[in-house]
């Protein structure tokens, strides 16, 4: 990737931005799906109960913190892998 020249870098950067937007939308809908599945299973009410809502909030927070931590470890492991390949 570091062998791209300026124009190629620019082109690539554009691709990255498009993908980031898509990735964010995917993250969002995945998270809704995940927390809905894990937290909501009672359909005797029409709106979220306070228990369900609390669960959804904790689920969201936990998932974001989880992926942050995975990201940090991912980066470390990736760097380690690169170093070992050289």
């Amino acid at each position, binding site marked *: *990737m*570091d*062998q*791209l*020249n300026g*124009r*190629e870098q620019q*082109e*690539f950067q554009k*691709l*990255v931005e498009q*993908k980031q937007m898509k*990735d964010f939308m995917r993250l969002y809908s995945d998270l809704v799906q995940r927390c809905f599945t*894990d*937290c909501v299973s009672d359909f005797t009410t029409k709106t979220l109960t306070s*228990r*369900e809502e*609390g*669960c959804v*909030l*904790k*689920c*969201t*927070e*936990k*998932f974001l*913190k*989880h*992926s942050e*931590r*995975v*990201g940090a*470890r*991912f980066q470390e*492991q*990736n760097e*380690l*892998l*690169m170093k070992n*390949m050289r």
Partner: protein
Amino acid sequence: MSFLGLGGGAPKLSSEQKVQAAEAELDMVTDMFNRLVDTCYTKCIEKSKGYSEGDVNKNEGLCIDRCVAKYFDTNVKVGEHMQKIGSSQFPGRR
């Protein structure tokens, strides 16, 4: 950045090919990351009884760290093994 040796030391490529290769590499890393988030979430996060806390607790954190490390380990091992099987099955290729 190169992943699994792709993208490094390749023969002369056109500009378009180089950007395409970089894109493929980005897609692969992104895909692996997303799989990792998903897999380690399933394996490590305690979601019984509707999530007792929003924080990643000590146990979960430790599990996540090990989960990621082992995923990479597995990745390398599978790669090596596939290569071994491949070279014995198609000896002329390598």
